């Protein structure tokens, strides 16, 4: 079963539109959703959770149509962390726990308390006095404490210091050790996604440019570094994007199979691939 299936989803807001979005996240995998600000990542997440109705197409989560009445029950199985925590500012973490215990049928207070200790969150301090990192930790603790099968994370690691971010990524990794657990994570921190994800989906101006296995992506592309003349000698379809590097040279993202076998290429990171593609598209 697929954890997430978006089929020909379309949603228009006038100047901006999600266009013919097709995205599949197989169950048991982690998919990173990448894109610039305003590319449509948060809109995609809202469409998935039926917080927005698409103009066309269907969104299915854990096998259930998001627009169907049955989807409310599916939300019990989905832990969501948005780009901000959005809890009312006067609540304390203890009160958030009590409210969530009445919200989710499978709320596990022991798990929640465990995360509060692990994240060192104060029990009696009101939410408004939390730092951004603390707020995000609380949101992550809530998302993980009702036995979800799917985590949907929208910039969940932003605002966390590198040590906590690493710990949180490890928690997400642990989460997917259960074979029916899946994650869709959007982030601007591409190195996190490279570390964590099995699939990378790239949204650009409301369109999905690709959704590929990360390993396949890294094998497909390489970074050429050399002179402009050397680059010009390559076939046009081999080059996806280029930039000037220091000392008059150029760097370019190239398809490995389209360049001569002897040409030395650097290993491309996910960040290289995305950045060059955005530049290429512009």
């Amino acid at each position, binding site marked *: 079963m697929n954890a997430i299936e978006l089929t020909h989803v379309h949603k228009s807001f006038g100047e901006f539109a999600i266009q013919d979005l097709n995205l599949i996240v197989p169950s048991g995998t982690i998919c990173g959703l990448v894109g610039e600000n305003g590319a449509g990542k948060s809109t995609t997440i809202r469409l998935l959770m039926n917080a927005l109705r698409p103009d066309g197409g269907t969104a299915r989560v854990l096998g259930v149509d998001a627009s169907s009445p049955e989807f409310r029950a599916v*939300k019990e199985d989905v832990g969501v962390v948005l780009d901000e925590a959005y809890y009312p*500012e006067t609540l304390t973490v203890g009160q958030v726990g009590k409210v969530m215990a009445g919200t989710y049928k499978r709320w596990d207070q022991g798990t929640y308390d465990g995360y509060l200790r692990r994240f060192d969150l104060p029990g009696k301090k009101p939410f408004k006095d939390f730092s951004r990192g603390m707020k995000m930790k609380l949101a992550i603790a809530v998302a993980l404490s009702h036995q979800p099968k799917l985590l949907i994370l929208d910039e969940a690691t932003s605002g966390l210091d590198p040590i906590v971010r690493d710990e949180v990524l490890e928690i997400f990794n642990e989460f997917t050790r259960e074979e029916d657990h899946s994650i869709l994570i959007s982030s601007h921190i591409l190195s996190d996604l490279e570390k964590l994800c099995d699939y990378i989906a790239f949204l650009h101006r409301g369109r999905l440019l690709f959704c590929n296995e990360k390993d396949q992506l890294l094998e497909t592309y390489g970074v050429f570094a050399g002179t402009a003349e050397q680059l010009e000698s390559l076939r046009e379809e081999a080059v996806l994007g280029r930039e000037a590097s220091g000392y008059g040279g150029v760097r370019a993202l190239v398809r490995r199979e389209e360049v001569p076998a002897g040409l030395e290429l650097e290993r491309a990171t996910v960040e290289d691939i995305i950045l060059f593609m955005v530049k290429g598209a512009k």
Partner: protein
Amino acid sequence: MKALVQKDFYVIWKQMRIYVLVLVLLSMVNSAFNMVFLVVWCSMLPYTAIAYDERSHWNQLAAMMPYSKRDIVLSKYVLGWICMAAVGVFCLAVQAAVGIVSGSAPSVPTLLASLCVGIISLDITLPAVLRFGVERGRMIFMVLIFGVMISIGVLVDMVDELPSLSVPLAVLLPLGAAVGTALSIPLSMKLYKEN
């Protein structure tokens, strides 16, 4: 829905502490005005909860959780009803206690009338607040109140004496509260879904 009402109680608790102080002082005076004032003031507590929701963008998060839109809307009515009922019972209890000394009896009909006025006030204002938010919703509420007051003023100018009501208030107020609630809740749901 219980969780949503619980959340709102946590959120308005600070405001309620001031309210409880005013409540204790005013409820000791056996006056119809005080009772109506306290209950109607209490019917506005849901707006405080909605204002906090708006400030924190709680509704964006709530949309990701297994709450129905019906639960979200109803919880605001339930919060108002619970607050009003609690205040009414408290007023009665205080006035009964004061009455032991002063010899005056608490007025149950005044309390029931106050509750009806509070419910009608909630019925009129909540749909607008849920649709347009607290700030703009309050403006609409003020326009409505001014509209009604001006209409009454014009009517009084036109006829020397207002005709006496053929239906007693004891029937009119509960009927108004029941009909108002029956119309207000579906309207609120429709407007909230349009948001």
